[in-house]
């Protein structure tokens, strides 16, 4: 079993962990809202401290220039903050992914899926979108789709995206999701493809035990995640209705306000600032657990149609708690193992860490159905 000391240092929400969290949140705030801060907050600060001068936008632009050397050959133009962010993100996934693989080198499932997320991030979420820009095609992330990347199935996608890309997104959202989830469970996406999951499981691996396990959090998780799914679906519907009505009136104003609101609070605030900023405080999958609308859909499919489950060798369980402690989704795996029940939970992202840390070989992720043959 791959051990880690979680009783000291940054893994134990010490002062360093708080600094890191604040740093991450500030970074995301600057990334998403540099203009807004310049317009609304800086003037306010200037009233308080006359002579104070700072422009977040310029700061981000300067920072981004540092990766011009990569941006020119890849995209044929200078770096902007999004390219800079993509670069740092990919670097973290790859470098920390290698570290993760070293740590779990004896666990084939961990090695393979980490190679997969590293590859997807590097190729589909970094190189391909950059090269598309160089070829003067609209940048496109093949590994993301509605409702996580909600703009790929909004009316705007109809005229902003090349049609083939639009159809790809629709295919992923409405055909690949149910089919692959039927065979493999939520994990095919959340633990093998998704970039958010990739960052959580590589750079965030040292914080996974910080996920909350209280009953309150399970109740909260159900409320928030399904609310956001409903909001995402309703918003999509409203925007399409608005698009086909094509009348500028209060309804269309409302539709666009709703869209702005969604991108501000959920897209940037929740998924970015809180989702990553809370790593050192509340574990790595805060967004995946409490927010992600795609996770909600995958989760519903997982507990209804999917063949995926975690089976238990219940008699061998010694109730040690490694599984529950290291479950980043806060699932009480141990309670299932002690009762000898299969684990079928909407939240389970199939990361397989419970299986890896169990010292008695009690847990196994599986999709196959058993068929026994009789002897003569």
């Amino acid at each position, binding site marked *: *079993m791959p*051990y*880690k*000391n*979680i*009783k*000291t240092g940054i893994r134990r929400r010490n002062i360093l962990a708080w600094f890191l969290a604040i740093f991450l949140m500030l970074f995301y705030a600057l990334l998403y809202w540099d203009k807004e801060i310049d317009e609304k907050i800086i003037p306010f600060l200037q009233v308080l401290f006359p002579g104070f001068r700072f422009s977040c936008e310029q700061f981000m632009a300067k920072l981004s220039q540092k990766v011009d050397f990569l941006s020119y050959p890849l995209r044929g133009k200078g770096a902007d903050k999004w390219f800079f962010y993509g670069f740092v993100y990919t670097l973290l996934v790859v470098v920390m992914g290698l570290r993760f693989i070293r740590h779990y080198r*004896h*666990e*084939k*499932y961990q090695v*393979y899926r980490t190679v997969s997320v590293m590859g997807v991030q590097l190729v589909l979420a970094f190189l391909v979108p950059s090269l598309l820009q160089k070829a003067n095609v609209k940048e496109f992330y093949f590994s993301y789709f509605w409702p996580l990347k909600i703009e790929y199935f909004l009316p705007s996608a109809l005229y902003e995206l090349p049609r083939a890309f639009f159809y790809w997104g629709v295919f992923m959202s409405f055909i690949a999701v149910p089919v692959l989830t039927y065979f493999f469970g939520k994990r095919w996406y959340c633990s093998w493809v998704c970039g958010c999951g990739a960052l959580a499981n590589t750079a965030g691996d040292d914080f996974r*035990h910080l996920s909350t396990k*209280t*009953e309150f959090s399970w109740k909260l998780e159900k409320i928030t995640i399904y609310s956001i799914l409903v909001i995402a679906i309703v918003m999509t519907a409203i925007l399409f209705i608005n698009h086909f009505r094509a009348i500028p009136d209060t309804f269309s104003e409302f539709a666009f306000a709703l869209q702005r609101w969604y991108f501000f609070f959920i897209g940037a605030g929740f998924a970015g600032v809180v989702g990553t900023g809370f790593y050192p405080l509340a574990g790595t999958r805060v967004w995946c657990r409490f927010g992600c609308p795609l996770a909600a859909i995958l989760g519903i499919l997982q507990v209804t149609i999917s063949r995926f489950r975690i*089976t*238990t*060798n*219940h*008699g*061998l369980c*010694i*109730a*040690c*708690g*490694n599984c*529950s*402690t290291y479950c980043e989704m806060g699932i009480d795996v*141990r*309670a299932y193992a*002690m009762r000898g029940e299969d684990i079928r939970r909407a939240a389970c992202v199939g990361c*397989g860490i419970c*299986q*890896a*840390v169990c*010292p*008695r*070989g009690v847990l*196994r*992720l*599986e999709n196959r159905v*058993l068929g*026994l*043959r*009789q*002897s*003569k």
Partner: protein
Amino acid sequence: MPHLLVMDEISCDALIVGNGPAGIKAALTLREKDPKIRICIISRESLYFYSRPALMYVYMGSLRLEDTYPYEKNFWRKKNIWLLQDSVKLIDPQAKKAFTERNQVISFQVCLLATGARPKILPALGEIPREVCYFTNLADLKKLEELTHKPEQIKRAVVIGGGLIGVELAEMLSYRKIAVSFLVRENYFYPKALSEKEGRLVEKEICQHGVDLRLNCEVHAWHQEQGKLKGVVLANHSFLEAELACVAIGVESETELARNSHISCGEGILVNPALQTEYPHIFAAGDAAEIVKGDTREQYFLWYTAEKMGRLAGENMYAYLKGLPLQDFELGFWYNSAKFFRLDWQHFALFPHLRQTEREIFFSFEQGNKLLRLIVEKETISGMSALGLRLRERFCHQVLAEKRDVEYFLKNAQHAFFDPEFFPNYGKDLEKYALQEH
């Protein structure tokens, strides 16, 4: 006894002494049967039920102590089970009262002694230096943590006793980068449950992790200078330098309370198959109990056996209170498992030990680095043991329960394994891996 008058007296229906898996399972079973019955669990080591086998992970820092609590703290309030941390000194079976160290008197209708086990003490080797420790409870954990607080100051530690806790200690100390000599009395590792082939494989694994493993090795005396441990003298009179000694030569039932209370004890607290002591309202279960069935006596020192006895004790205590018939303890299948450093071991069988009428069939994988052993009586499978591999409990149970033969096992062997995905499934052509018998 006049001083009793100043004692606090509380009363409950079911008093459970010991909050290990046996005591806890009994309490939860009682609660399931009857939502009103007043249940009190009293235990001296910890207020909350924790997982004893997880102590090693707490030592290594990969778990916090609270992580080893199988139930949330407020679970007990919700279940209306009353927890007390105290040591019971005496039970008066006739008066149905228990007396504790903190001067509590607890009256009860039925009582369960689930006092667990204590380590076997090395036979007198003279005065015992402070640097000698055992590893079975929280106090031991604390002591070991203190003794190894500065691991770089310990040149070498000896672990005495080649059992499952011994391997854990060897792994724990190696993890802290302390050089370990592992002294095992037997001529191969753990003959109690492993065959020689398996024992050798475990020895290889232990040595690969830098442990100096010594078989056929017994300790003769401590060597100390100015009250500090400096080494051990072995039975062959050679000397081994060591600044720390961890002893894990097995456990025995904790019977002190029962003996003081004049409840009959043998190796453990003697109980009938319904888990009653000589006093029908006092039960015993778990590591503490010794079950007398006709001429045979049974004692088990495992987590699942303690849990299983605890469940039956809970049912029988309820039945006793309601005047219903009691049930007898049936062990059912035998299983055990461990992790020897990185090597998994899982064992499912009808009986704990190999019997005269049984033979063994071995399968060897990856140049003998993984082993499967089938235990066969005539043609029927009576047990299977896997080393470096994992077995599927449901399948193994089915094979045992339906008395399946070797042919059936070979045909369905791809379902027998429980290794994570992407590991080779040797079950598809298992016959190929059979070792020739000689």
